[in-house]
């Protein structure tokens, strides 16, 4: 078992109450393996106490990257959230805690 943080990097973005997480392997040759192991379902399971809505995965073979778009994931969104990190900017590293 390895943590994603050893294999890939990620950036978190927000649009209202939607959290967007990219996942990019350090070594492009790990891309196919990540596509097989890090699915919309496994991300939803890993972040089930953060993401109340759905997870949609976009696979980008040209860029060797994936994007996870998570709805109802930011306690209402940046303006009215009670979270310390209202934007969810630290949540890229929550994804990278996932073990594969």
């Amino acid at each position, binding site marked *: 078992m390895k943590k994603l*943080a*050893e294999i890939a*990097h*990620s*950036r978190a*973005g*927000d*649009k*209202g*109450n*939607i959290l*967007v997480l*990219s996942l*990019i392997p*350090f070594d492009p040759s790990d891309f196919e393996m990540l596509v097989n192991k890090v699915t919309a379902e496994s991300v939803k399971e890993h*972040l*089930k*106490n*953060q993401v109340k809505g759905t997870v*949609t995965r*976009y696979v*980008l073979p*040209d*860029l060797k*990257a994936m*994007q996870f*778009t998570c709805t109802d994931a930011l*306690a209402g*969104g*940046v*303006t*009215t959230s*009670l*979270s*310390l*990190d209202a934007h969810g*900017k*630290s*949540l890229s*590293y*929550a994804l990278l*805690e996932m073990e594969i």
Partner: protein
Amino acid sequence: MREKIRIGCGAGFSGDRIEPALILTEKGNLDYLVLECLAERTIALAQKRKLQNPDLGYDVLLEKRISGLLPLLVKNKTRLVTNMGAANPIAGAKKIIELAKEQGLDVKVAAVIGDDVFSFFTGKEISIENERPIDSYGKLVSANAYLGVEAILPALASDADIILTGRVADPSLFLAPMIHEFGWEVDDFEKMGKGTVLGHLLECAGQITGGYFADPISKPIPDMDILGHPFVDIFSDGQGFISKVEGTGGAITVQTAKEQLLYEVLDPFHYYTPDVIADFSTVKIEEISKNQIQIKGGGGSSKPETYKVSVGYEAGFRGTGEISYAGAHAVERGELAAEIMSLRLKDKIENLKIDLIGMNSLHPAELAQNSQPYEVRLRVTGMCDSLPLAQEIGEEVEALYTNGPAGGGGARKYVEQVVGVISTLLERDQVKPGIQLFST
């Protein structure tokens, strides 16, 4: 028509650093400088300032940013495009003219108007988020449409040195100069898509040069203290080369660009702006030399039929209190403090959140398994209808000094009035962009 232009981005949010834009403008050999300073909530707050004083409502850092930049912009004949007009581009333009006169500089400013659609909003429009009428959220304070290049192009066609907008889509600040200089057709969606890719890569400034990227273990970035901001050389066919000023800190790599390309993108195959539905999935990023990358590919198909409108409403008061515990049983004492706060406040405040910073304030608690911090900080926060109730949260946390667990230190309390933001859509023909020119 020109073959190549250079656009720099010297600010990626309202609170961005001032110095990188000065370096870019002085040494970057720019044709255009863009400063992107307007987030969704920023404009609602600006609208409130304008209500209190009709001469305000532009970006609060406008004077500070523009004063230092003015002589450099004039000397190097660099045009500035910025959304620092916020809720009041006309008042902002007058302020810039005043600043230029003080410095004995000759400038012309174009204020781009028409994004403020509040006056003809009924409140019955339906929000995208929850499909509820927007006036059901609370008292409305602002409504601003995300305008596109059509609003900026007339200002570029004038002889204005500085173009000051309110709410426009961030990539449009970059795309408009490309259309203006290269004579692109606005329905050439392939070009609109390529230009939008470049604008999106640049719009957060330091986020493509190593900011929001650096990790000393897995992604080390040099000289973060003097992080440079980026510029892009765009060719008339739509390809671009992104780099930064020699001697500045940070790094521009395929990795930094990939992270930024996908940043805040809900669907990389369909990225919506007022100008185009862009396809980011076909973008190719290649490192040409140290701190220089080439961007090719990307495109677009059509453009949305409606404008997105950001609506601000009064959402109440957020009260917060914090206090720290350290050493033996720090977590247990923090948990006891949390339990006491819950019991003292839960009957009064429905919407209450209690975290232990160091354990579970940023990520879901289960991710912190097996971690045992030396210090924890209790954070109690809640949303309230009234200011006094919101203040009570911090007061109760502070009172833990003498009414709570042992060794609580460093209590802080604060209250903010909260402006919430929701979105709705508006038919294009309901919005009438325009410009007003001002000169010294």
